[in-house]
């Protein structure tokens, strides 16, 4: 790839101290709120999703505080139902589903494929506005009494009996779903049609493969939950009986339709994390991903197989035994592609030049935590054990291991890794590394005791457990861990924001990584590249034995104040050689 010199083709008026980029090209509010630039929309999403993450965490803290006592500490039963519903709805629909795709995906997909923007910039902006409107609605729900059906909105409680804000929260989820659909449409078309010359499918970074697979799942699954939830609203508001058992309707039909989306939804939440993980592992072991084709195809396999396993959420809901056997079998099969990825990442690490910087610590944490989460899923896929473990805290621990230990860890890793590219500033990696360890410790302390608590019988969504007081010890450990985890999520906000204010400026490629996004300046100009890149090299084209690579990788991020460490074309290296 030719190294393009930084070229100020968009000159701002007046004396310019820093090169023009997508952030400083226009400071007006209107330019931000009416932007078509995918990078600005990614930043808008970053702030909105983090706001909802904070809200969801507040709900989580209330749950954890409540559970320290077997007879409840601070919440009535009604309110407890509303709090865990709020936690689920906000975390799933307003943080996990949009986070990596809408923040990192929006920012990186065009950069990684060498395009100037996504295929439909205004649709992208509409996507964000739908998300904001949905967010406003869910805030209204919280302010006007909340919803107590659980994030799963099971009928007939949600359609016939609940007196809480079911309709408004369903409309909020509906709009958030369409927001993700529009993002998915954008990614699919962009990745198919707007790759730079020479960027074949098998030269794509694995993050782009993951974004593509995620978008396919979003397109095919989200409309089903949209209509299902809409039917609940129709039943509540227009009295159209669909799931009403008194008239011969079947409430379990709701569960079938709901989980037809909601199981693929968990793959929506983890596939982008897999994409980030591939990028981190490759770039921090200075090695191309082992078995690239296997990882790419297993991503597609997960998105396809993920659509035919939804019945494993309904094993105890009067689902036919024979159907359950089929779902159980396929659920075991769907674990295979995920395992393939773990094996390939491990093989990538082998004989790589491992750099233990903060994003890599998150990536390594992901490997372990996701493996635990995934393996515990197999206990739940097996019919016999599922009867014992379902609706207990074992399930809660399982999905938090994959979603927090998997998705959120990868999000943190990706955020740190691409922070210099997105903001042009370098954060303090020392504190970040310590914080990554803190996340790992806090997370395990929070969720590992929950496995045991669930196994000995603690049901989920209960706040009174005085009949099994022995689990209180596990709950207290869990709450202690939650406190540590909470602190470890606040600290990054502090040092990342501080880097914005006073961090050293980043060059185009502070990590010495490979990828089209690292070929352009940090932060990029509005149209990403000064010339359309022509791709001739393979992806992750590392030369592992090159000392120069090691030097370049190590220099800038660990020694950010040293300008000599930053390499430019034709300049001297710290060791005295020239490029």
């Amino acid at each position, binding site marked *: 790839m030719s190294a393009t010199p930084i070229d100020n083709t968009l000159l701002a008026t007046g004396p310019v101290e820093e090169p023009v980029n997508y952030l400083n090209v226009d400071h007006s509010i209107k330019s931000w709120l009416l932007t078509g630039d995918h990078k600005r929309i990614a930043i808008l999403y970053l702030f909105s999703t983090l706001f909802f993450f904070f809200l969801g965490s507040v709900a989580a803290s209330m749950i954890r505080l409540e559970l320290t006592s077997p007879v409840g500490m601070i919440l009535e*039963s009604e309110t407890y139902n509303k709090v865990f519903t709020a936690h689920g709805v906000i975390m799933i629909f307003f943080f996990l589903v949009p986070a990596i795709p809408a923040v990192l995906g929006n920012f990186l997909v065009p950069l990684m494929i060498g395009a100037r923007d996504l295929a439909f910039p205004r649709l992208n902006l509409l996507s964000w506005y739908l998300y904001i409107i949905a967010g406003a609605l869910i805030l209204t729900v919280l302010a006007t009494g909340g919803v107590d059906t659980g994030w799963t909105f099971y009928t007939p409680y949600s359609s*016939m009996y609940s*007196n809480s804000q079911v309709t408004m929260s369903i409309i909020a989820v509906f709009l958030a779903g369409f927001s993700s659909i529009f993002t998915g449409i954008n990614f699919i078309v962009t990745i198919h049609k707007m790759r730079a010359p020479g960027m074949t499918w098998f030269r794509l970074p694995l993050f782009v493969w993951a974004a593509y697979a995620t978008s396919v799942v979003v397109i095919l699954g989200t409309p089903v939950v949209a209509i299902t939830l809409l039917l609940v609203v129709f039943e509540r508001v227009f009295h159209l009986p669909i799931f009403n058992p008194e008239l011969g309707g079947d409430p379990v039909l709701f569960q*079938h339709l709901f989980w*037809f989306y909601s199981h693929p939804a968990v793959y929506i939440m983890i596939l982008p994390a897999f994409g980030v993980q591939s990028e981190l592992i490759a770039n921090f072991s200075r090695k191309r991903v082992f078995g690239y084709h296997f990882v790419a195809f297993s991503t597609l396999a997960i998105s396809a197989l993920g659509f035919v396993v939804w019945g494993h959420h309904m094993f105890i809901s*009067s689902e*036919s035994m*024979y159907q359950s056997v089929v779902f159980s079998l396929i659920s075991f099969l769907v674990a295979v592609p995920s395992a393939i990825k773990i094996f390939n990442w491990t093989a990538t690490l082998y004989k790589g030049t491992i750099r233990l910087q903060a994003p890599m610590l998150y990536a390594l944490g992901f490997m372990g935590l996701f493996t635990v989460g995934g393996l515990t899923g197999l206990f739940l896929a097996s019919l016999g054990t599922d009867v014992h473990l379902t609706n207990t805290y074992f399930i809660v621990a399982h999905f938090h291991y994959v979603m927090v230990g998997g998705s959120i860890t990868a999000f943190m890793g990706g955020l740190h890794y691409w922070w210099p590219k997105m903001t042009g500033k370098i954060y303090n990696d020392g504190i970040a590394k310590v914080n990554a360890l803190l996340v790992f410790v806090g997370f395990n302390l929070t969720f590992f005791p929950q496995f045991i608590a669930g196994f000995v019988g603690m049901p989920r969504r209960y706040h009174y457990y005085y009949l099994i007081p022995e689990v209180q010890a596990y709950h207290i450990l869990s709450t202690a861990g939650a406190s540590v985890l909470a602190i470890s999520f606040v600290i990054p906000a502090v040092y990342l924001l501080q880097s914005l204010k006073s961090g050293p400026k980043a060059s185009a490629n502070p990590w010495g990584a490979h990828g089209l996004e690292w070929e352009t300046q940090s932060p990029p100009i509005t149209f990403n590249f000064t010339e359309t890149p022509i791709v001739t090299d393979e992806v992750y084209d590392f030369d592992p034995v090159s000392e120069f690579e090691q030097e370049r990788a190590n220099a800038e991020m660990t020694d950010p104040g040293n300008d000599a460490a930053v390499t430019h074309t034709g300049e001297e290296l710290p060791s005295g050689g020239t490029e």
Partner: protein
Amino acid sequence: MAETPLHAAHDHIIPPRVYVLNLLALLALMAATVAIAEKVQFPAFWIFSGTFLNSAAAMTIACIKAFLVIMFFMHIKWSTNLTKLYAIAGFVWLSLLFITLGDYMTRQYEPAPGWTGKQESALPRVIGAHDHLPNDANEANLRPRQ
């Protein structure tokens, strides 16, 4: 960048005759499907009852009509392979949802009774008395909303 034409090379204009013929075919099929449903009685064949075959005929005609609309009115016949792929994908994927029927069709073989379509209540059965928890039991939750 070299000059590029405003109209893509493969954008050929389809003669209106194609559209008129398509419309006539669709209207004919519509008349056929109404006639078959109202007038024709299918005999039973193998495991399929006459009613089922009639419904199958109606659905087949509907599929043919859909195919004609998609091919000619929606221009799939002259579209790129990518567009064709996406058009097919939606219908193929919808068929996955019908796996759910497998659940309902095999419930009759289950040892425990369930929702089999017979006149039977699907409401939960109260097996025995249960403890009432303190500070709880908002009985209003057990009544349907007015």
